[in-house]
């Protein structure tokens, strides 16, 4: 009998600490949740603003987006987000949040901003696992390489030249790393092609979505 009681008390003590611990975590979560969500929004917005200066759009970029399903033509295995930038109620640019699957060590998450006229407004790397000191030259902190995309479009350079220099294209590779820039160039090119061929569908999808959200708004 005594033994049973002993086990019971030990169990209760353990349970008590579980409750106290969970409460502590719960309270901290409550107090920090809003701040954390803010941080994440701000960090994303900062990245988006690097691609698309804030004077180029006047809508709530973070909340104006559509999702496209996993699509081979875009080289995506998962669905990806496209942010829609509007200025004075006209769509001015789209920002594709895509993954370049063929990095040297895994996926490279990036943002590709395309102006409505088909020129690139900018490209930024969000996260990657490339070799430090070699492949990470695509980060803006390390080199200006990624800025070389700005202003390029599907027709300039020509289709055949949308490659790194080693493959006969116009984009620099890094010393000691060809695979990383090759993956990035390819992913950007795919985005441009996709945008060129499916611009209409993307806009339709966006229209449909806004109409669903605001059923009263007949002007669309």
């Amino acid at each position, binding site marked *: 009998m005594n033994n049973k009681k002993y086990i019971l008390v030990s169990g209760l*003590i353990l349970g008590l600490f579980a409750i106290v*611990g969970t409460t502590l975590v719960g309270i901290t979560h409550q107090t*920090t949740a809003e*701040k954390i969500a803010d941080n994440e929004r701000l*960090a994303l917005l900062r990245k988006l603003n690097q691609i698309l200066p804030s004077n180029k759009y006047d809508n709530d970029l973070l909340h104006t987006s559509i999702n496209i399903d996993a699509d081979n033509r875009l080289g995506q295995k998962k669905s990806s987000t496209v942010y829609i930038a509007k200025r004075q109620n006209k769509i001015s640019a789209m920002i594709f949040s895509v993954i370049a699957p063929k990095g040297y060590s895994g996926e490279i998450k990036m943002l590709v901003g395309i102006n409505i006229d088909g020129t690139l407004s900018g490209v930024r790397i969000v996260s990657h696992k490339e070799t*430090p000191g070699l492949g990470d030259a695509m980060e803006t902190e390390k080199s200006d390489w990624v800025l070389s995309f700005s202003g390029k479009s599907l027709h300039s350079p020509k289709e055949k030249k949308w490659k790194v220099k080693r493959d006969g294209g116009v984009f620099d590779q890094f010393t000691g790393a060809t695979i990383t820039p090759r993956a990035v160039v390819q992913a950007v090119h795919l985005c441009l092609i996709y945008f060129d061929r499916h611009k209409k569908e993307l806009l339709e999808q966006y229209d449909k979505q806004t109409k669903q959200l605001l059923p009263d708004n007949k002007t669309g």
Partner: protein
Amino acid sequence: MKDDNYNEISKNGLWNNNVALVQLLGLCPLLAVTGTVINGLGLGLATMLTLIISNAVVSLIRHLVRPEVRVPVFVLIIASVVTAIELAMNAWLYELYTVLGIFIPLIVTNCGILARAEAFASKNRLLPSILDGLMMGLGFTLVLVTLGAIREILGYGTLFNNSHLMFGELAHNWTWVFIEDYSGFLLAILPPGAFIGMGLIIALKNVIDKHNKKKQTNTATQIVSSTEAAV
């Protein structure tokens, strides 16, 4: 507790029984994040805070918890504390949090913390336990910062890069550039560089210890011989 006992605790934490150099605990985060000084400092301070809080709590409840359930209770305490710190860092040190990433929650699995709870805090009063947590954490942080400094200088040619992640916008120009246009030394940045650097630090500590011991025995024999001469 007497003063020399506190001295002993401090010495153990910082040198004689250093978590990283002597106990060799918590090596996974230690080797993974020490690419730069600031990363090392960030993880070191988070670990130190965890050690202080968990040691304090464990010491307070040491009479309440029975031996059979003590380990799960300690783990619960450590896990809750670390999760709370992780959330707080995510809220107030967001940039640093994104750099340190998975290694903040992994502080839970740093055996050094459970080892201190079990070996020290569960047997000692509150104040010594807090001091033990502080000193053990400080010892760990110092190793992280030293290793981070070695790897940052060799690997990037800079020191205190990215200080603003921790100290805010004011610290943007704290970076010391040792070598302009340094092309980088890849080995120092990659994990093998961490192992080599860590090995060298441990070796250095052992050399210093040996040297000190020799000195002590030397002075001892000197005293003996001088007394003999006097006789």
